[in-house]
């Protein structure tokens, strides 16, 4: 699980994830940087700590609450030339934090979005005895090995609305702090 820097998180959000949980690490920050900007040779950190004025402006422009105290931003460079911005952001999914990355062009249009870490809290075992009788799964006594046993979940669609809202907030952050 990637480390969420404390300096950007509001006091209200706890970084510790209650177990049991389902977690997928899709990409590390550096892997996502290379995928979003394959032509770039350098990613220069340009992290921002928000001032109260920043927060006010971002909230006004995006219509979203800005709970973070700062933003992790990298300038994607190719031979010293700015090719875009790579921004890591955090939103709450169903219950837990989702980390994702947004790649912006130098003009502030969204080039790519990649989920870095996805987490959900789950009950730890299949409790229903009928199911065990009729369906495949693990043996009747075994618990699932969390994070190994659960790889695919089928169910009613889970909305990605919080990420969509987060992207609006990122675009407002670009307008406020990077433009």
């Amino acid at each position: 699980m990637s480390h969420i820097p404390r300096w950007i998180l509001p006091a209200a959000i706890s970084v510790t994830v209650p177990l049991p949980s389902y977690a997928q690490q899709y990409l590390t920050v550096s892997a996502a940087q290379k995928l979003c900007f394959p032509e770039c040779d350098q990613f220069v950190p340009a992290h921002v700590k928000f001032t109260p004025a920043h927060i006010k402006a971002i909230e006004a422009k995006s219509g979203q609450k800005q709970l973070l105290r700062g933003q992790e931003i990298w300038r994607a460079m190719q031979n010293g030339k700015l090719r875009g911005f790579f921004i890591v952001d955090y939103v709450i999914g169903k219950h837990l934090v989702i980390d994702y990355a947004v790649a912006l062009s130098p003009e502030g249009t969204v080039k790519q979005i990649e989920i870095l870490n996805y987490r959900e809290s789950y009950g730890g075992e299949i409790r229903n005895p009928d199911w065990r009788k009729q369906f495949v799964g693990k043996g009747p006594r075994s618990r699932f090995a969390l994070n190994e046993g659960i790889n695919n979940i089928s169910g009613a669609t889970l909305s990605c609305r919080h990420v969509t809202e987060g992207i609006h907030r990122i675009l407002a952050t670009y307008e406020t702090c990077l433009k």
Partner: protein
Amino acid sequence: MRPASNRVRRARPSLGTFVEITARGDSESKLHGAIDQAFEAVARVDRTMSFHHAGSDISRVNCEAFQRKVTVDPWTWRVLRAAQKLSHESDGLFDVTVARKLMQWKYLPRRYQNVSEGNWRDIVLEKNCTVRFRQRVIIDLGGIAKGFAVDRAVEALKRAGVPSGVVNAGGDLRVFGLKSELVHLRRPDEPMQLAGAIKLCDRALATSAIYFAQRRFGRVVESPLLDGRTCRSSRKSISVSVAASACMIADALTKIVFILREKSRPLLARYHADALLLERDGAPLWMFRSSCDTRDRTRFD
């Protein structure tokens, strides 16, 4: 066959949900390239078939198809044709014009005024990917396009030479290649708990339930799963999972099985699909196994 040595798994927000793509193969960089192409196919479905984007085929059709013929992307036309076929076969239970009701219940934004009370028979599909409406109906492909997007993503991965993998669009998924996958199902009354697992090989699985989507209107609770014939929504706390060879078919059939239950048998058999209904506590309520005898059968046991 040599086992694939690498596994790459990525996810992006699209189609209003999280789309997760897993690819197995030898070269990691090749897998990333293939996944990029698969995400591009998903993005094309999102661009063309979204009810929400103002420039999508669906928005254009909803605005103009009553006045004039509208030319749509060949993919949109294919989905519409499949939807029409399913509407016909389910006697109007599956109906993409329920968008009118979904808009009233605020599952869809209220973007259209003066919508008539038509049904799927008012949609006319003509040559060269053109669409026109006989009545001022509006349509939404929310019950079928996600499955279609999964199929197109799988196609893109295969075309790029990926031997096996999984595409999961927020719960509607398809497993391809020789490697089977365990897929867990959520408990209808407590979706953050899992009810059990199904083993799939080279097959799609879609699930419908109302646990993330019910809403209260005064004293009435509605859900976006509704019967096109009566325009009444189902509020049963069950879940329906359907396995079929194509995810689009699995996706659409879940809506039909949700309402028809056991009576959906002939339709399931026609599409060589399997179905599984789960009670609120996750106990299996009813199951249907298609008679097809291929290696890609769904394994419930």
